[in-house]
């Protein structure tokens, strides 16, 4: 074989070997593609549609489409149910997050210590997160059921309530709100606890030892050393929790459907009932989008705070 042919052959072999995996620019784009497609198709597109719907008059029943501007938002604000739902959303989100933060910090601190059967307790705490949300909530539906409720049954057997005096957990306005908040806290607690456990374990033992030597008692140690050091992670957990509480509807949908008399109606459920069940897509989109600017601004502020309080 002539040398020229040999060289050509070798060059071709080399070209065959250097495939797409060697072209980093192309490979990078290729690997990013699934994520980009996913976000555009399943987040970007519906979001744009929602934006568009919220300023239109689109309904399930007709093919008419006209831009009506902020008309949907104005009529939402004028609707007393919407105002009620807005207030409920804030109460629901703020109270549940306050409880989650306190309970998750306590739990995380307890779980950091070594004790017998720790793995079992960890498993129990993680369980609500692993179980399908609707399934868990249906379990709670039974627990809070007026006639067959285990809580009422227990309270009655130890003699706290007589017949016909026991509470109807999901039927009395205040109790209904307290119940949905309780279930929501139960559900979010595992995630928050795990996030905080991660934050706690990132504090070097030396810092805790130094605080002990320096004479800090439990409260000083906790609020002046531990909490400031996990503040960035606390804020991130808080942000996720708030967004979750405002945008999620499964717990309320399963337990009360917003009742009684809209006492547990939140924006997410109201948007669903108006847009999907009621067929008024435009009004539903407007309700759903109402808190978007507030949430986005809140998220930015919390992330900024988290970065500023990062210390190590």
């Amino acid at each position, binding site marked *: 074989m002539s040398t020229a042919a040999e060289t050509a052959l070798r060059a071709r072999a080399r070209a065959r070997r250097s495939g797409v995996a060697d072209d980093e620019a192309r490979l990078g784009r290729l690997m990013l593609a699934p994520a980009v497609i996913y976000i555009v198709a399943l987040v970007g597109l519906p979001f744009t549609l929602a934006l568009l719907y919220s300023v239109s008059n689109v309904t399930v029943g007709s093919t008419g489409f006209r831009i009506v501007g902020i008309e949907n938002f104005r009529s939402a604000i004028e609707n007393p149910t919407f105002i009620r739902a807005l207030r409920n959303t804030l109460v629901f989100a703020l109270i549940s997050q306050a409880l989650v933060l306190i309970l998750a910090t306590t739990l995380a601190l307890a779980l950091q210590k070594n004790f017998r059967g720790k793995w079992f307790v960890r498993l129990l705490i993680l369980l609500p997160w692993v179980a399908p949300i609707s399934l868990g909530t249906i379990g709670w539906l039974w627990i809070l059921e007026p006639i067959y409720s285990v809580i009422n049954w227990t309270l009655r057997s130890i003699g706290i309530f007589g017949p016909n005096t026991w509470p109807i957990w999901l039927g009395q306005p205040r109790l209904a709100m307290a119940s949905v908040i309780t279930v929501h806290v139960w559900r979010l607690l595992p995630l928050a606890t795990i996030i905080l456990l991660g934050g706690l374990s990132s504090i070097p033992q030396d810092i805790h030892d*130094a605080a002990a*030597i320096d004479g800090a008692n439990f409260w000083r140690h906790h609020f002046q050393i531990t909490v400031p050091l996990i503040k960035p992670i606390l804020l991130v957990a808080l942000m996720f929790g708030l967004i979750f509480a405002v945008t999620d509807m499964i717990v309320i949908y399963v337990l009360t459907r917003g009742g009684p008399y809209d006492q547990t109606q939140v924006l997410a459920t109201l948007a669903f009932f108006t847009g999907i069940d009621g067929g008024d897509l435009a009004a539903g989109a407007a309700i759903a989008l109402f808190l978007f600017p507030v949430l986005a601004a809140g998220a930015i502020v919390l992330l900024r705070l988290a970065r500023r309080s990062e210390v190590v």
Partner: protein
Amino acid sequence: MAIVETRDIKKRFGDSIAVDGVDLATKEGEFLVLLGPSGCGKTTLLRMIAGLEKQSSGDILIGGQVVNDLPPRARKIAMVFQSYALYPHMTVAENIAFPLKAQGAKRSEIPGKVEWAAEMFGIKRLLERKPRQLSGGERQRVALARAMVRQPDVFLLDEPLSNLDAKLRTMARDELQQFQRRLATTTIYVTHDQVEAMGLGDRIAVMNQGKVRQLGPPQQVYYDPADTFVAGFLGSPPMNFFNQDNVSAGFRPEHFLPKEVYQGVQEPLINLWFHVNRVENLGADRLVYGHLRDVFQSEKVIVNLPSTLHLHIKPGAAYEFAIKEQDVKYFDRTTGVRTEPKPFWKRA
């Protein structure tokens, strides 16, 4: 100021024993160094004295009082950690003030005390900074200031210099000793670095495998080692050992010198032929690697010659070296414990 005492103190972690019956007592205002290789139990011992670790058995006394069940904050101690353990979210001033606040000092007294401590360690200009804005040396001073500010009875230091670079370490060592002398606070200092131990300690407790092998002033521990572990652990390069029957004999590399150096010396000498294999010139010293003959069956020897000794030494040649009889130490070969001199070679 207080005396720290441990009585037959033990610490078990599961099946392993970290500290195995240590009896130790400091003197008033003493600088006591716990020296040993990593894993010898020295840090565990210090943490038990601090109250960060509970002993499995035995008693700890501070100032004559049994403190077994007292939490760290009630023991009137201060501690400096290897990592310094500064609170990263607080300024230097807040770091130094923290122990004062935690122990309920009067609010009006705190700024003055913080200033006093900062002045002593020359860190006044750093008071408003956060730990991450400080260099290693500055952090170490802040850690010392935070420990000193409450004027503790006992000062515990866990390898406080090991995170500094070599040059800074020498300086910090000198300063540390000056502060300790000035405050005259009883100090227990943990290190694996024999140079620090020799340079700082009033006394050194050499530890190995959870036990104190020898306790004494630096010179004594160095020149009169109690066993082969202490003899081998201290000194760099380590002691040269020779085994014969049931006896181990050892001498330090800097004691075995050319015969001429010992001219006019009164003490009895041992003369030996030294066959040189290799010479390492380290600047201040020359390390000469070689071996002995005759009864020593070509055992390897390292000799440390100061560079002030102008002597031409060539690899491959043999020279007449000598050592004072008193500089050769004898140990029981099985137990490693020091024994009476049992010279197993001929006197020259």
